[in-house]
């Protein structure tokens, strides 16, 4: 059967992979292409690159970067961050991206999901959903987690699926950056309600968290950034641990 996937996420500003707290105090941590090659070599199943520059100049640089990634990397990768229309999605496809992640643009115009997936296929469209608990209810947030989108998490995930999303990338905002574990229950619920794969994000701090997100959370894939970038967890060791715990993992 299909393996559970481990996905490092790289935030990119210009030509650099960066790390920052809530997009402030951005610190360069490496070259996106070289980091990607290294992750692919050490067993990453896929990569996600997010453009956080949010300027037109930055976007041009990002498209060139996507081409360089596609030239050098022999595993699948997703690109996202500010993709706002069909034309920009097509630009990413032509630059060699395997999938695009759309978030705020899909919230303000859900038909965009249909528009892109009907031309390029569902497998090309990942809908990224950031959500937080408001009065005990999981609500979707837009614009990098800043603005309430007025939609419930499950409703929006199902709507995205119906419109042609091939995958859901779910980030639990309250868990993100805590390193205290994923939002297991909510991920499990999403995963059982949806018929498309779920990538879990937010809260990874140690190897056990990944085991739990696959076993209890029923996630199809798990995404993390800083713990991989700063070497706290090596993908190779992580995958060996997960395999030994009885999960179906590609080694």
């Amino acid at each position, binding site marked *: *059967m*299909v*393996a559970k*996937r481990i996905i490092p996420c790289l935030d990119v500003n210009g030509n650099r992979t960066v790390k920052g707290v809530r997009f402030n105090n951005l610190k360069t941590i490496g070259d996106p292409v070289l980091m990607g090659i290294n992750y*692919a070599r050490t067993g990453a*199943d*896929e990569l996600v690159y997010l453009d956080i520059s949010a300027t037109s100049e930055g976007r041009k640089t990002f498209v060139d970067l996507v*081409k360089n990634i*596609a*030239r*050098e990397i*022999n*595993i*699948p990768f997703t690109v996202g961050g500010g993709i706002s229309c069909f034309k920009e999605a097509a630009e990413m*496809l*032509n*630059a*060699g*991206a*395997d999938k695009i992640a759309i978030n705020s643009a899909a919230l303000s115009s859900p038909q965009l999901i249909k528009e892109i997936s009907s031309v*390029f*296929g*569902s*497998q*090309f469209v990942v809908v990224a959903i950031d959500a937080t608990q408001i009065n005990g209810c999981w609500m979707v947030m837009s614009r990098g987690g800043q603005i309430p989108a007025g939609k419930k998490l499950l409703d929006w995930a199902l709507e995205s699926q119906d419109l042609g999303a*091939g*995958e859901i990338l779910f980030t639990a905002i309250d868990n993100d950056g805590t390193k205290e574990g994923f939002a297991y229950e909510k991920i499990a619920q999403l995963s059982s309600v*949806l*018929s*498309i*794969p779920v990538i879990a994000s937010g809260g990874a701090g140690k190897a056990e968290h990944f085991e739990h997100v696959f076993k209890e959370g029923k996630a*199809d*894939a798990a995404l993390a950034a800083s713990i991989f970038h700063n070497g706290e967890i090596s993908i190779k060791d992580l995958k060996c641990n997960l395999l030994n715990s009885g999960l179906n993992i*590609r080694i």
Partner: protein
Amino acid sequence: MITIIDYGMGNLFSLSSSLVRLNAPFIITSDPEIIRLSDRVILPGVGEASSAMKNITNCGLEEVIKNLTIPVLGICIGMQILCKSSEEGDTECLNIFPPKVKRLRGEGIKVPHMGWNRVFNLKGELFSDVNEGEWLYFIHSYAPELCDKSVSHTQYGEIFSSSLQCKNFYGTQFHPEKSGTAGEKIINNFLNIK
């Protein structure tokens, strides 16, 4: 010269990049004359079967492809349209490989089948020096049935043909150009078929 057939089905950048990494010179075209003069041909593709067949017909390539005697490799939808027919869009295909392409089914499985899965019962030159049970990258909702032309099996819900071979025609449901070093090995094996 290797020809990658450009029939308007998705992005050819990943595939051409993997050929560049393997130092294999290639040309991307839909010109029947160039295709006929090639040493080998790759039919890539991402997308939907009926559109893929329509594009092949519109490019005037149906007979050209069927009559090729050099090694031909269909990847993903490129393999599916070499099969008899596809449930996707109820499509009659090129009928080089005998199986029908059917929607993936099975209890509790999510469609599309997306990610790394294993190939077993490996046969033929395509898998020379590739390990039984190797992991390769899949992304699809339809797959060819098992048949006597299957040269690898994969299980996702049911067991399907993850690759096929019939004379000089080869096909893979997985994406070798996205399957790390194992995938590069398979492309290289195809390039080295005598």
